[in-house]
């Protein structure tokens, strides 16, 4: 396993700037997710790290070795594509064995490694089958086995689950961490599915329009997004953005929500002190999980009425309205709320983000 370092990568396709001066480091043995919406440049960055694409400028290092000009095979990487890459004329065993033909010393060694990979992906019973005898989900497992069986320096996954149906995707997703532990290599995993990234990655790099937005652990990215985009992209249901006005009254900081106010914590006050004059054009970012509903008034709550209820099974996604502000919150399905009802929203102050609407940066 190696440490992968991409430095100042820029990639221009004819007139399109796919990557704009992106630098990212993936430490030894880490499970790193490149996350972003389509067209964000995540696949291009991954292909540049893999050697399938050459950057317009910038370099790629494996440990301290500059590999920018090396081909994928010279870089010794293993990769899983969006579609199964199975050689149709070979059975599953030979497909996996072909990938390590240059690495094994003996037939015995080959057999052991193929069996190890097959058991890791739970495809032992399919080893003698051919391409047309197995379904798509198993084929993708074979593709993954073909990659992890290698003694590769980096393992790269290009949205390997995006073409599977939901059930298969969930079952494979839950196995990825186990696979990573067993293989113990540096994993780079590209996905547009934030749930997938949050579930399996050690660290996540978020891209948007060819620029790296934030790199961090799933928790860091979820609880401390650096900007509005990251806050919006991560988390389901989506975070609420509420236009607000800030006010300092008797050294306490209040933020308006619709017709009423809530008091912000000390941390927010501290962070906002440096920009005293610019308390306008501010938004609050609050995740639906961090808003609870009370049917009776409690201190520091916002009176509002229920505009719309969507049932998500055991929980309800409730849209609340207070004056001009509307926001969604999650509450227990057991709670007796009806549309049009007057309720009181309580914000979890620990997790309120204050966002500069102009620069879209998260102030706290």
């Amino acid at each position, binding site marked *: 396993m190696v440490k992968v370092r991409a430095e100042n990568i820029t990639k221009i396709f004819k007139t399109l700037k796919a990557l704009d001066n992106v630098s990212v480091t993936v430490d030894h043995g880490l499970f790193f997710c490149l996350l972003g919406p389509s067209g964000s440049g995540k696949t291009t960055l991954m292909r540049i790290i893999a050697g*399938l694409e050459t950057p317009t400028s910038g370099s790629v290092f494996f440990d301290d070795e500059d590999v920018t000009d090396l081909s*994928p*095979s010279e870089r010794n990487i*293993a990769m899983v594509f969006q579609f199964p*890459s199975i*050689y149709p*004329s*070979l059975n599953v065993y030979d497909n996996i064995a*072909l990938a390590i033909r240059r690495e094994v010393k003996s037939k015995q060694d080959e057999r052991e490694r193929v069996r190890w990979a097959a058991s890791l992906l739970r495809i032992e019973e399919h080893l003698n089958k051919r391409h047309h005898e197995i379904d798509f989900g198993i084929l993708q497992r074979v593709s993954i086995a073909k990659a992890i069986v290698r003694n590769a320096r980096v393992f790269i996954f290009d949205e390997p689950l995006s073409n599977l149906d939901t059930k298969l995707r969930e079952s494979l997703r839950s196995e990825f961490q186990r696979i990573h532990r067993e293989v113990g290599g540096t994993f780079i995993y590209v996905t547009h599915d934030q749930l997938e990234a949050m579930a399996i990655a050690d660290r996540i790099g978020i891209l948007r329009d060819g620029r790296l937005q934030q790199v961090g652990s799933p928790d860091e990215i979820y609880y401390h997004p650096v900007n509005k985009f990251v806050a919006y992209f991560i988390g389901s249901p989506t975070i609420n953005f509420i236009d607000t006005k800030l006010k300092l009254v008797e050294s306490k900081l209040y933020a308006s929500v619709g017709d009423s106010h809530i008091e912000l914590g000390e941390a927010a006050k501290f962070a906002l002190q440096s920009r005293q004059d610019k308390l306008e054009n501010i938004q609050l970012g609050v995740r639906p999980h961090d808003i609870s509903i009370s049917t009776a008034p409690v201190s520091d709550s916002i009176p509002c009425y229920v505009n719309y209820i969507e049932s998500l099974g055991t929980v309800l996604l409730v849209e609340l309205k207070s004056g001009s502000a509307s926001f969604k919150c999650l509450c227990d399905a057991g709670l007796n709320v009806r549309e049009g009802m007057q309720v009181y929203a309580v914000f979890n102050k620990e997790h309120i983000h204050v966002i500069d609407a102009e620069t879209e940066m998260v102030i706290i």
Partner: protein
Amino acid sequence: MTLQATTGSRLIRIFSVLLILPAVALVTFLVIFPLIWALGLSFYSYNVIRGEAPVFVGVENYYRLLNSLDVWRRFVLTGQFVFYAVSIEFLIGFGLALLFYNQFSGRRLAITLVTTPLLVAPVAVGIFHRYLFDATFGVYSYFAQLITGQSVKILSQHPMFAIIFMDVWQWSPFMMLFILAGLEAIPKHMLESSEIDRLSMFTKFRYVVWPTIRPLVALALLFRTMDAFRTFDTIFTLTGGGPGTATEVLSIQIYRIAFQFFRTGEATALAFIFLVIIVLLTNIYLRLARRE
């Protein structure tokens, strides 16, 4: 309601039969009937010029043809022509397809230029190759002389080479188009995957390229083999089967028996033997193409 529905559907059925009737009639009278007539004729001794009544001779025509050394020689000759022409077309077509598989500026124009021989009428191909091969002022003869240092009369000294060359000139682009279509159907991620799996050129070809292009290659070979077998016009206009009978392939021999010697019965018998061979070849190729 039910009655109406049945009448309606019966009307539609009658109408559809009426619609295809002209085509069926045309095929029956112009293709199927003559074919059966010809099959019958092949068991008779008949000369279309003399106008005498055909004499039933049973399988004698077939017996005589299959035992004739002359006919066997034509078979071998035709086989050689088909084998060399189609093999070389395949190799050149493959080379061109690999060349055009890469993207480069002017690629589309180059493909158009390379495929123009396909558009030339066969008789024209034969006639202008006669000029190109001409011993005194032909361009090919000029180059042959430059290379070998002596005057070469290609058409009289190497007539077989001449007809194969002409066929290759016209039909290699056809092979190229098929193989190029096959190459372009290879999924990109499979090529990249084989690169990442560090497969050698040969293994890559065997496991990634060949399985995808095989059906198209089989189809191209099938078309070309059948077509080369029945080549008539180009060879007839270039050499007329000569010198002597050096390039007299089966189709030209059938023509000669039928329209120069007017042994009509014998000619139809030979044509039927010819047909059986082509049908057999077709089956072999199709079987190879379908084999998984």
